[in-house]
Each structure stands twice: as C-alpha cells, then as structure tokens.
C-alpha cells in the first residue's frame, strides 16, 4: 500500500488499497438472523435484511482508513417493491382483459423498466457515502432506455453486439455516477470489450472442439479395439456418456463465463477516472475469481446453502483486496472540498418518489 511516486506534474500520486475486514464468521450470523426473520415474517423483513447486508459489506470495506456507509431506509425499499408488485399485479389483471390489454401492459412495462433501473441505481448511490460525502447518480431517460433495453435486446438478438451492450451498460453505470459533485468517467475503446468477448468465444469453441474430439476418440477406440476396451471402464453407455459430456462442458462454460465477466469488470474499473485525476485500478485475476466462484458454488450446494455467507465474504474479500485507488494529490483535501460542495448544494431531495428495490 501507499507506494509513492512523482507524477508527470507536481502532484504526488498515492496508491490506496481498498481494505476489506469482513469475516465469514461475522457475516454468517448477520445472514442467519436475516434469513430466519425473513422466513418468520413471511418475506416482510426482506428489505431490512437487504439493508443490513449492504450496511455490513459497505461498513467492512474501507479506503484510506475510512469505511463506506450505507444509509438506506428499509421502508423505502418496501415501498419500491410494493410498486413493482402492483405493476406485476396489473399485468395479471391485463391477462383477464384480453390481448390488447396485455400488449399495452407489456409496452408500458418496457417503457417503465429503465426508470426503475435508474431509480434503483440512484437510490443505492445516494445512500452510499464515504467520509460523510454521498454518491449520486444522474442519467436521462434516453440513456437509461438505451443501456437497459435497446442495447441488451440488440445484443441478445445478434449475439455479436453483446460486448457493445456490456460496454454501454458499464459506461451507463460509471459515467453518471458522482461523488460530492465530482463525476466518474470510464473511457476506453469498444474494441477492447470485443477482444474480451472474442477471447471467451474462442475458449468456448476450443473446449467444444477438444471434447468432441475426445468423444470421437473414445468411440473409435471402443469399436476398433473391442477386446482391449473391455478391460477399461469407459462410459460408452450413451446416456451416461452424454451426462458426463454435459457436466464437463457446463463446468468449462461456467468457468469461461465468470472469467470473461471479470475481465470486463477489470477493464471498466481500471479505466475509471474521478474528476480531479484519481484513478481506480482492479487487478483481480479473472481465473482466480472464476475458481473462487466455482468452488463457492460447489461448497454452497454441498452444505445446503450454509456456506453462502462465507462464499460471499470470500469473493468480496478477494475482489476488494485487488482494487485500489490512485489518488492524485491530497485525498483529505479532496474529501473536504467534496463535503463543502455537498453542504452548499444541500442534502438530496428526499421526496415520495425516492424508493429502492
């Protein structure tokens, strides 16, 4: 931590590693109480559970000695969920009214969806703070519509546009985020995201080719050398063979998917700059993240879900420990200025429309 060097200008760049001091033991208890109360209250406690979880993960994550804070009021989340539930109920009602009612409802839902996503992101940003300074999120409806509906749909329909959709989404999340009035900005060539997805595609095709080759090999082996093959346990039975094939391929595909997603995360994070020159760096190794996610999944299934809180902490700890902020100049002065700016602008408007999901 705190490697110091001289930048191109007179400012001193200091690297602050993000610290994560959460433990599985501690979060397990929080999680257990959350799950129990949620079940006992028939789901009504869920918003409180969500706030407690977020507060915990924000609270144990710190930068330059100061932890992050999460301030959301659970009632606001309950309100947001009630709104969504009402909208879904309207959908059920429209089913009774006929075809045109369903079409109208679906169009309305598509139109409202970006608003909901934007609202949820904004809610979380506004309720997150560091050193008393809140984050914020401003995006126009048009931008939200393109990031949440137009690009993802185009990506799923054409597949080769998926990396572009991911890039648009990442820039939507970052470029509208601000901290005490300072904007975040992620800029990089779209070609880099394409390269990442192309790598994933090549890996998947490679795995498929190798596995089909191996299958053919086994088939040739068992038919040509019938006498020898008898002495080996080869899954020649078509059903068990296809199961083995599916399992192996599924595992590889899962690994590659997580791998690609982490590469994309690293790309966006590492190219994120905060107004004032501070930069974020994420060095999390994609293969390490993929291994952690896979072992977490296996252990969670084997323990009937009991490993889940430990898994969550394990992944967060690795990701956070590999993330750092390179601050240009004095971070104290930066935080102070941001706080002053915030107090002159006034606290966020907390109206009825402020709700989370």
């Amino acid at each position, binding site marked *: 931590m705190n490697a110091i060097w001289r930048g191109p200008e007179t400012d001193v760049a200091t690297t602050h590693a993000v610290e994560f001091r959460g433990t599985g033991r501690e979060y397990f208890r929080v999680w257990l109480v959350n799950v129990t109360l949620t*079940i006992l209250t028939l*789901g009504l406690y869920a918003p409180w559970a969500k706030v407690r979880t977020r507060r*915990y993960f924000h*609270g144990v994550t710190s930068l330059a000695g100061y932890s992050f804070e999460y301030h959301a009021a659970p009632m606001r989340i309950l309100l947001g969920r009630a709104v969504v539930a009402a909208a879904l109920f309207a959908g059920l009602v429209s089913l009774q009214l006929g075809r045109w009612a369903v079409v109208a409802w679906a169009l309305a839902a598509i139109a409202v969806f970006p608003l909901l996503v934007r609202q949820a992101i904004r809610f979380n940003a506004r309720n997150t703070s560091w050193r*008393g*300074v809140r984050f914020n999120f401003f995006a126009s409806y048009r931008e939200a519509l393109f990031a949440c509906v137009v690009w993802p749909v185009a990506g799923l329909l054409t597949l080769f546009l998926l990396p572009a959709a991911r890039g648009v989404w990442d820039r939507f999340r970052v470029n509208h985020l601000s901290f005490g009035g300072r904007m975040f900005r992620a800029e990089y060539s779209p070609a880099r995201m394409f390269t990442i997805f192309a790598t994933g595609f090549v890996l998947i095709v490679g795995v498929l080719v190798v596995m089909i080759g191996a299958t053919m090999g086994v088939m040739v082996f068992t038919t040509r050398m019938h006498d020898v093959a008898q002495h080996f346990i080869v899954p020649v039975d078509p059903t068990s063979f296809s199961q083995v094939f599916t399992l192996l391929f599924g595992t590889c595909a899962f690994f590659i998917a997580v791998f690609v997603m982490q590469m994309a995360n690293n790309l966006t994070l590492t190219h994120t700059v905060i107004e004032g020159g501070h930069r974020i760096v994420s060095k999390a190794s994609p293969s390490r993240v993929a291994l952690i996610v896979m072992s977490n999944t296996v252990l969670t299934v084997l323990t009937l879900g009991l490993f889940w809180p430990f898994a969550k902490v394990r992944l967060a700890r690795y990701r956070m420990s590999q993330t750092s902020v390179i601050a240009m100049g004095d971070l104290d002065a930066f935080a102070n200025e941001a706080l002053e700016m915030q*107090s002159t602008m006034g606290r966020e408007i907390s109206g009825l429309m402020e709700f989370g999901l």
Partner: protein
Amino acid sequence: MSVAGRYFPPNEARFHDAVAAVVGKRQLRIETADGHVLSDGPARGLRATPRLASLTRRIELPSGARFETEDNDGADALLWKLWRLPRGKTTARLEKLWPVVAVLLLLTVAGGYLFADRAVPAATERLAKVTLITMAHPMSEQALLALDRFALTPTGLGAADQARAEALFERAEAQGRLGTGGYRLVFRGGWRIGPNAFALPDGTVVITDKLWLAMQDEDEALGVFAHEISHVDHAHQLQRVYRVSLWPAAVATLTGDISRMSEMAANLPGLIAQAPVPDGFERQADDDAARMMRALGAKPSHLAALLERLDRAACHGKNCPSGWVSDHADVAARAARLKAQDNGAIADVCAGDWKARLSIACLRSLASR
C-alpha cells in the same frame, strides 16, 4: 462513563480523537483527551446508526458534526443514558445467540416440510372427496369426450371378450368403497396410448384393447381393475390437480409479495410436491389392489408379472412409449412389493407406539417413500 471515538466537525472530513460522555440533564458532551470541549448539547435531534456486527457506530449531531466509535456496547449505554432507544440491539442479541436462531430456522423449515408433506395432502384429499360428490360426473364426461376426440378410438373387442371382462370387473367392484354398481367399465381402442387403463373421478374405468389382450389370466385382470378402483376410491386424479394448484396459491397467500425469494419458494414445493405424488398414489393403489385380490382369492404376484411383462414389451425398443407402466424405473420396486403380498399385507413398520415410529426400519421406509 465515557466512550472513546473520533469527532468530525460539521462539514469536515477530518477528525479529532475525542471522548463522548453524558453530563447533567441528558447532555452529550464531546471533548478531546486533554479536556477541550468540542461539542456540548442536548439529546434532541441526535441520530445514531443501528448496531450491526462490529461496524463502526455513528452518532450524528444536530449541528452536522459526527461522532464515530468502535465501542458498540459503550455507544448503546450512552444512548440509553440519553433516553434514546438504541436501535439494532435485538438483532445484535440474536446474532450473539446464533445457535438458537439456527435451531429456530431448522424448526421453521421442518414445520414447512411437515406442512408440505402432511397438511397439503390431507387438505387435497378432503377437497378431492368433497368435489367427488358434486362435480365428478360432469368432469369425467368432459374428460372422456376430450380423450375420445384426441387419443381414443372405438373398441375392437368382441362381445364375448367384453362379457368376460364385465364379469371380472363386477367381482372387483364388490371390493371397492362404492360397491357393486358404483363403477363403470368402458372399452376403448386407443392404439396411440398403448396398453393402458385409467380411472376417471366418477368411477368410470377405461381399459384399452391392447391391455386386455396383454393379460394372460383372470388374476391379472382382477388386479388391474382393483388398482383402478382404488384410484377412484381415493380420488387420486383430483388430488393431483389440487396439489399442483394448491401450492402456488398457498405460497402466494402466505408471502403476499412477488420478490425473488417467494418466486423460488413457489417453485420449490411444486417440484417437491409434484414429483412424489404419482409414486405414492401408485403404491397406495397397488396395496389396495393386493388386498382386494387376496379377498377374491387371486394372487397379487400375477399383477406383478403383468407389470414386468408390459415393462419388458414397452421398453426393449429404444424409447419407452407411455402406457399403463409409465415409469419403468419404478416397476421393479412395485413388482417386488406386490409379490411380497401374496400371503398377507406387508407389515407396517411404523404402526404402534412412538418407539416403532422412530425405529430405523420405519425411518428407512419413510425415506424410501
């Protein structure tokens, strides 16, 4: 008493090491270690974050200043003295008593399982039997009409065959809950559905020509009829319909919200409750058939032989077509159970006092069920 922490002046991101204490009449005073007073004010307008695990506790003062401390117990005591109810204390206590919470959760899940395993089937059986009286006939008529249009053809059996079947059916009928005349045997071609027989809620038993021709002796026919009559007696068809629809309804009513959690909860029991249903019903019908067959002087092992023969005939090709033997993986177990009942019912290992109910044999039988 005093609590050590960090004091952030209003609108400043920098802090001073400080100590907070309650003085006088519910006044919170914050001062540096050498006694320099940083803040002194009444408890009014003061806001504290709820306690959570070992997170830093934060008290926001009306002036906009903040006091932070790692000492959660101290902060709770401080708030208590200020006549403020420290939030998050209950959950903190629960987190400390996590084994108790774990047991509570286990009991809740077990309760939910018992509800799914016992209460839902009991409710569906009651519902199904109530429906039987009022609705069964029109429902069955509609079902048969639909089947005639899509899956069944008129029978090709001769009068002699039909008369023989009717005579055997009459003998089996006498053993059913509704007695002679309470059921009706119907013959259909239905080459598409293979060798098959099924019961409709109003007591109509449909048998396809293929199944009749596959039978080799009277005991087998008696067994098939008794099996179907048992399905009618227990209203299995209706029970299946109710079970599939009752779960989502129950879960939706209970949770009342459509979040991810309840979505999962709505799907899981569907999977749990749906899969073992036909299995349990088949077993019940087999056991009833065995009892009726013994009463008629027939041997349940003959029904087992028919099952195995149909299974062999149906599944020796590449794909198993649907038929009376729908789930061929289960046929071996069903046949074995039927064969064991030639000389009397299988002893219920769970009958008797609580010792028998908790015995290894009983638990194993429950697990295999």
